[in-house]
């Protein structure tokens, strides 16, 4: 419909990796004529990520702690997605891969207890109005089992260069874990 109204539209595929994200940014900045700013932004992101990667590589990969994404309704994030890649930059292994879970599959509570990840990555909760989806995280079985790292839902929603901040925050948490 927008095309018929002769408004210029640009179709971007969902970015499920950093490279895909870069491609999208480049195409977008080309379309709106802001290529310089776009390139600068991307370069900043790559630099941050590279620094993180160097820090993570100081320990062997099989010593990395495990993290599990637990989104509302117990849905997790699997291999080959943007969030998964960020995990690696921050120096974590994805607990979902231990069970072969894909993105948007439920991480059963029992399995979660058995796998015992060091970190649970959850979304900040809507405090005032409850939902069953969020109640899951308050299950007594989960309380006190692992450290929790909260992410604002908006942070992972749009694939922009600021997702590097998410990775940085995760890396900081990793350091806290290391000191525990």
């Amino acid at each position, binding site marked *: 419909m927008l095309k018929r109204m002769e408004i210029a539209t640009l179709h971007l595929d969902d970015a499920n990796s950093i490279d895909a994200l870069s491609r999208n940014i480049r195409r977008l900045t080309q379309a709106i004529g802001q290529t310089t700013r776009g390139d600068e932004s991307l370069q900043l992101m790559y630099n941050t990520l590279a620094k993180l990667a160097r820090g993570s590589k100081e320990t062997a990969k099989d010593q990395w702690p495990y993290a599990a994404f637990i989104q*509302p*309704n*117990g849905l997790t994030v699997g291999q080959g997605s943007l969030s998964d890649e960020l995990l690696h930059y921050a120096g974590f292994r994805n607990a979902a891969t231990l069970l072969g879970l894909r993105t948007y*599959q*439920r991480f*059963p*509570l*029992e*399995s979660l*207890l*058995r796998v*015992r990840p060091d970190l649970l990555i959850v979304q900040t909760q*809507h405090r*005032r*109005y*409850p*939902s*069953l*989806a*969020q109640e*899951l995280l308050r*299950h*007594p*079985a989960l309380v006190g089992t692992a450290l929790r790292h909260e992410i604002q839902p908006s942070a992972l929603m749009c694939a922009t260069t600021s997702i590097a901040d998410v990775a940085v925050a995760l890396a900081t948490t990793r350091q806290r874990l290391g000191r525990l």
Partner: protein
Amino acid sequence: MKVGFTKLLLLLATTMLSLFCLSLILPSSFAEPFLLLELLSRDSDIARTIFLELRIPRTSLALIVGASLGLAGAAMQGLLRNPLAEPGVVGVSGSAALGATLAFYSGLASIMPLALPLGGIAGALFAVILLFTIAGKRAGTATLLLAGIAINAIAGALTALVLNLSPNPFAAMEIIFWQMGSLADRSLLHLQLAGPLMLIGWALILLAAPATRALSLGEATAVSLGINIRNTQVKIIGGTALCVGAGVAVTGVIGFVGLVVPHLLRKLCNNDPAQLLLASAAGGASLLLAADIAVRCIPASAELKLGVITALLGAPFFLYLIFQLRKLEQ
């Protein structure tokens, strides 16, 4: 009690307890060992947590909710003298879901957890009373089913509205839980909230058991045989509202258990409505335990919802019952 009934009850009780134990220790997939073995080994902290916080609540709820649904179904059939009366079919479960969702999504249940089952009970009570007013005295099957359709439609629409209006973005999709039912990830808190209220409901219904026998001859005769009809109605209506309301509040709507179980067991109980109450409780518990084991252990990419399984079994059964009844009424 004829020898037949003792044997039947013993058989049902044994089945129920076996399924209970099985559900507690059965692993969810081939990769995991039996929980019992894990518990017995030295390093069993996790196994103990799983057992106490996950398996016990889930399995216990399957047992008591199944028993409640079976009992309530048999009780409603005894009171209304119609084999199609069942909490799901006649809208009692749907209304309970409405009451529970109002209590939960308004945030009331976060302040006072007991509000959750009480909301379910209030919803269920409203529906049973309404149903009884419409279809109580001498109403035929058609009236009963139509009343159920109406109550289900209204309750369903209002529940969807409550979920839609909740500011929480996840609420709208949770209609799936409320309408299809699930025992996954229930906690000891749910057991504590629903359990005692259900027990009271059971007691009320069982107190009315002898009356259901006399009611087989119709209300006028039952009164002449010394039955206090008003008392009986209050007990069965109240008991049903308590069992079903508290159950739906923690598991969502699980339908057809109260329809299938009494029908299957009626002949075995010699058509005695009073014996059928106990038998249906044990039978309902067994059915739900078995269904929950299936849900937990059948590998599927998305978790099967409990109510889907009971509906797959129960809905064709329902259709078959309707045909049978139509033949009889002609």
